[in-house]
């Protein structure tokens, strides 16, 4: 097994609001290895973005944001290191790409300046050297005539080009971990495929670990090695991609898989009834219980733990317990 780049243990991110505590992330654990793409899947509001913002250290700095649990980066516990040390990790060792490339570039600076900023602040590179790096990065992410485009402003780039620029910026210091928060959601379908292809190619070149946040199982199948399915702030299933698609163990995952169209299939698409729970007062037992068609009494009483069912495939559902005992 390759080196573990990131390990998250029992991570909790709670927000104190006027209406009470919102448990946006409530006990999430996973590992990401070098060169691995780990996908975090779930509906919007399930806590996948908050998990990643917490890993980046962008959440947890305000008084109303409470973070518990441990985050290990290359074996080092970074949960409680100083703000300044955390800042130095950001951009240099771990980067993030946001959903909307139209707004994640600063409109008043050239794309080149924004990429060059990374080596300048993290590696103390000179302006001219940093600009060279910027041109190189633009070339790497497939932008034509990069030596010209480097001096252009974001509004002169198309949406897909901007996302390429953002990716180039994120990778300018060769980070060990790249978090991609729905990097293709805001783009046209044809551009989406190009960006995913680019990410896959770059990962092969750089051996970075990638966390891919998405609600699109198609994206998961395309680019990732392993998957974690999140529901209402917790991981409900974790497996290798192939395993998960072949044999989903959690009713929520099953529901998600049934809701995507498969070419050539005559099966009807189904939807998962109901809404994710309000995180102010989530149900006591399994959080999926109110929407689950297999729900039992036990599900209402007690929250199931994420346990290994078979060779590395984990799920948090009492059904598996019943199945196991029934064997």
């Amino acid at each position: 097994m390759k080196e573990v780049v990131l390990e998250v243990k029992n991570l909790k991110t709670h927000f104190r609001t006027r209406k009470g505590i919102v448990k946006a992330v409530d006990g999430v654990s996973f590992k990401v290895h070098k060169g691995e793409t780990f996908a975090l899947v779930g509906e919007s509001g399930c806590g996948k973005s908050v998990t990643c913002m917490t890993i980046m250290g962008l959440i947890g700095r305000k008084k109303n944001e409470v973070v518990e649990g441990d985050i290990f980066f290359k074996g080092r516990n970074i949960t409680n290191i100083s703000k300044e040390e955390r800042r130095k990790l950001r951009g240099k060792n771990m980067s993030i790409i946001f959903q909307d490339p139209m707004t994640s570039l600063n409109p008043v600076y050239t794309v080149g300046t924004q990429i060059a900023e990374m080596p300048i602040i993290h590696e103390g590179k000179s302006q001219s050297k940093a600009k060279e790096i910027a041109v190189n990065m633009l070339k790497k992410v497939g932008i034509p005539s990069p030596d010209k485009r480097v001096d252009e402003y974001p509004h002169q780039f198309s949406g897909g080009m901007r996302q390429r620029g953002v990716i180039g910026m994120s990778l300018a210091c060769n980070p060990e971990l790249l978090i991609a928060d729905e990097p293709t959601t805001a783009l046209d379908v044809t551009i989406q495929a190009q960006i995913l292809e680019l990410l896959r190619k770059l990962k092969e070149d750089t051996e970075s670990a990638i966390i891919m946040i998405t609600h699109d199982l198609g994206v998961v199948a395309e680019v990732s090695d392993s998957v974690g399915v999140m529901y209402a702030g917790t991981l409900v299933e974790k497996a290798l991609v192939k395993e998960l698609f072949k044999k989903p163990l959690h009713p929520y995952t099953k529901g998600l898989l049934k809701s995507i169209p498969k070419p050539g299939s005559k099966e009807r698409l189904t939807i998962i009834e109901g809404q994710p729970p309000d995180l102010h007062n989530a149900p006591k037992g399994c959080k999926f219980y109110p929407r689950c068609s297999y729900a039992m009494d036990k599900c209402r009483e007690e929250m199931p733990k994420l346990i290994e069912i078979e060779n590395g495939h984990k799920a948090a559902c009492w059904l598996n317990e019943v199945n196991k005992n029934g064997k």
Partner: protein
Amino acid sequence: MLKYVVKRILMAIPILIGISVIAFFLIRLVPGDTVTALLGVNYNEEQALILRAKYGLDKPLVVQYFIWLKNVVAGDFGNSFFTKEPVLSAIADRLPVTLQLMFMSFLYSIFIAIPLGTIAAIKRNSAIDYGASFLGLLGVSVPNFWLGTLFILFFSLNLKWFPSGGFISFLEDPVQNLRYMIMPSVALGTAVGAVVMRMTRSSMLEVLGQDYIKMAEAKGVTDRRLIFNHALKNSFIPVVTVLGIQMGYLLGGSVVIEKIFSLPGVGQLSLQAITNRDYALMQGCILLVASGFVIINLLVDIIYAFLNPKIRY
């Protein structure tokens, strides 16, 4: 960029022509013309006719306008009917005072307003933020002439720190000049500072909520760099637009402030012209003030374009 500037200058031309039309015809609406005022109690038809012919006031208005405009373009604004002094030199004499007043008010207001607005936005909902908001509200509400009056009461009559009015040229005695100019500048600049501060705060708040700021944080920039390099330039864009309008306020407000502090500036000159019904002088002042405002706004738009690459390219 050049294309934008040229376009912007061309757009200002019809406005300047409009101003000249207003400056000319508005004054002709004043009841009782200069001749009446000049002759006063000695008024008689015969003399009035002679004088009107002398000043060209017997020609049709439109003709008078074009004659006047031709002269203005050539730099001849006519002579004051009262002092016989050329209008242009009368204005030129007074202009430095008004410009110094505006310049000092402007500096005072932005040097306080921009840092305060920025800090208030960064430390949102803190004591500093509330304090700044309160000062801002007070600043936009206090009439400048009353503020000037309070300054005189307190700092001149009571504490005797500053003279209550008058003027000494900067070239003559810089220290005395500043002593005379500080209170008027603060009285005039406070409202502008308050508006700019409020604008800076709200604009900064908006910028700080943008994705590119989140992105910059994710890039690992220091807090300092985040504010100075990533947020400030963006937050200036709307502030600059407001500054242009506020310069007009400084220009208009200088009339009142110069009166209170007995400063011999263009504002006082305009007031004099208005009370004396001095046509040529009034026209000159109106033309100067309004076109000055148009030119300031032109400059502001060019600075705006410089800050905002979306216009530049």
